[in-house]
């Protein structure tokens, strides 16, 4: 994946990513459009389907634009929810879990 050489921006996700958090997350992600992003999901204790939609849509959009978007660190809860929902996009699953 191409990158402009600068270090990626880090977006730290809050602890709770429930229904109420989706709009805020969407804004945050949109604000970083055009830049490489590393997601830090290590604090996430709860995540809902709508926030997952935002993240997956972002991952797909970034990929289509040849930009970097990946979850660097993720909490157990985050990974469990991904599995539960049957989402296996590599960008959302941190490398450590894939190993």
């Amino acid at each position, binding site marked *: 994946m191409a990158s402009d050489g600068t270090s990626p921006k880090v977006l730290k996700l809050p602890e709770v990513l429930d229904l109420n958090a989706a*709009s805020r997350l*969407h804004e945050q992600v949109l604000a970083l459009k055009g830049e490489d992003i590393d997601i830090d999901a290590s604090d996430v204790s709860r995540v809902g389907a*709508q926030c997952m939609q*935002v993240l997956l*849509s972002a991952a797909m959009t970034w990929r289509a634009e040849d930009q970097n978007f990946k979850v660097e660190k993720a909490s157990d809860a985050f*990974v*469990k929810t991904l599995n539960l*929902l049957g989402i296996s*996009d590599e960008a959302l*699953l941190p490398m450590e879990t894939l190993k």
Partner: protein
Amino acid sequence: MDMNEIKEIFFQECEEQLAELESGLLRLNDGDTDPETVNAVFRAVHSIKGGAGAFGLDDLVSFAHVFETTLDCVRSNKLEASPDLLKVMLRSADVLADLTAASRDGGKVETSRTSGLVAELEAYAKGQPRPAAGAPVAANPDPAASTPAPADDNGFEPVPFSFDGFDDDEAVGEGRSVFTVRFKPRSDLYAKGNEAVLLIRDLAKIGELQVHCQVDQLPSIDLLDPEGAYFSWLIRVETDKDEEAIRQAFEFAEWDAEIEITAGADDEAFADPDASAADQPMAPVPFDLNLLDDLPVVSDEAAASEPAMAEAALAPANLPLAAKAIAAEVEKKEATVAAVSAAPQTIRVDLDRVDRLINLVGELVINQAMLAQSVVENESGSSSAINLGLEELQQLTREIQDSVMAIRAQPVKPVFQRMGRIVREIADMTNKQVRLVTEGENTEVDKTVIDKIAEPLTHMIRNAVDHGLETPEKRTAAGKNAEGVLRLSAKHRSGRIVIEIADDGAGIDRDRVRFKAIENGLITPDSNLSDEEIDNLIFHPGFSTADKISDISGRGVGMDVVKRSIQALGGRISITSRPGKGSVFTMSLPLTLAVLDGMVVTVANQTLVVPLTAIVETLQPEKKDIHSFGPSQRLIAIRETFCPLVDVGNILNFRSDLADPVAGVALLVESEGGGQRALMVDAIQGQRQVVIKSLEANYTNVPGIAAATILGDGRVALILDVDAVVIASRGQPLSSEMALAATG
């Protein structure tokens, strides 16, 4: 709010659901194949069951449950909505209504009624599997069943399920079965605080899952509505529980999501590399319950297969999908708008509050009239500003009144729907085939009128089926369709609501009516009556032509009672009948019982109000037009016809001698049966809207007087009961109480 109030609200909602249920079933019966209709019917029963469960109404719950199960088979196309099944369902709806009523009023529904239906419903639910794919259409005449369920908007198509190759590569544990769940939430699901994650987690408690998330609807981040619903899931559930258990996991989500549960594994859908799966051809993720609690564990198999697949899936080659997603989104938004406009927002208001408001507005109208009058009386220099203000006030008052009346206005639909049940019951009892056709159900009329027409209407419907329509054999012999048609219609006509009940039966047997009337001493054998007059004899007290008193019509209630209750509402009823073709009963009722447009007249120094709807025309009699007839009868010639002249003052005992017709004014009124009478009054004061104050409630019933009102000058004026006065003019004097009315 205490429990009883909540329960009361539940029963109110039940009534709405029952109405919804019945109208849905009737639409299906008429060949409606819209899946949404089936859904609406299912929802109605489901809601009743849910509420009843909360209140521990076990009888209701268990019956609703069986009913719901059968409906669910229809909903999922496993069962054809055949006319026979719909008949059973309509009867079930009736029983459900009875059970609801019994739960509310503390009665009991005979178990024999429910158990039979329960057995029938269960037989349908179990015994009639979905017709095999490719079954000849001819064997399946119902269009509802032969039409495949339409693809829903996420592109899911019903996938023919075959048992061949079932579980080829995976052994299903003993006593366990496999279900395929398709779950597509709508944004409403999230908006109502439900969470797909939790629902799937609940499902995971039932059995072992393989979850496949379908993301083809997911737009790019710029187009994404963060509160939208784009994910849908295909889930394989291996469980030792039944389908019901799976359904229960989705119980609170089912109105806000598309949920399809099919028995068996849908390997094809899981493995299908194209279509919806194309963009995310990931292997189903084996999911075990440990994941819910333990450290993250992703099975090796899944982990190994994922990277390669995901890469393939999410390559830019999928971009055209974004366009598709946008189109789908637009479509969905439009659909939402349509759905919203179809369901107007409502609030529930206690009827007493509305009544109080109506009363107050009535007082306002009177007050406004009084104010206007005193301005006229004290007119000094006639300030145009005052007059203008007064006129505006009048306009406003009128508008307020109309708006308040509109609050009470309700469509006649609920009453009409109840008649469907009456028809079915009577048709069953008399072994007749009857189809009820209703028209103008959305015609609105005041709630009090609606409440009061149900009973006379019920009786007339019973009568029409019992006496009006012939048996199928007789109908066939007469060259008619074996199924009789009963047409119930409502429409607005000149400020009144007109309800017609028309049957295509044999019409009134005039010879028999005449014979019966002579036998009962109602008429003399040599009476010369017109067809219309004979027809109207059936409204005479105690008249019944039924040879044997049947269970249906012979309940001691005759058409005379019907007529009286309609008259009590300020209504009229008439009948027209054509031998061999059928009869039409026409009821005309005021739209409201609260106000009336009246003509204010003077009779023997008393002020009376004559309802404007009764008056055909007014005229000034001339000496040459007045003809005497017998000792006290007088006629007036109007355009080459003679019309009896009725002295209102004399009939009401305001005066003992007859007034001079030439000195007064004649009001030509229409009486029932169509005959006209000229009512003599002394003078016309004017025309105005008056607020009706019940005499019965405030004083006592007075023959010849319908009600009272308060005029602008604060005086009480009586409202004339035109029909009673006309009847009295035929020689049946009003009772002696009249003297009281005249002085009071």
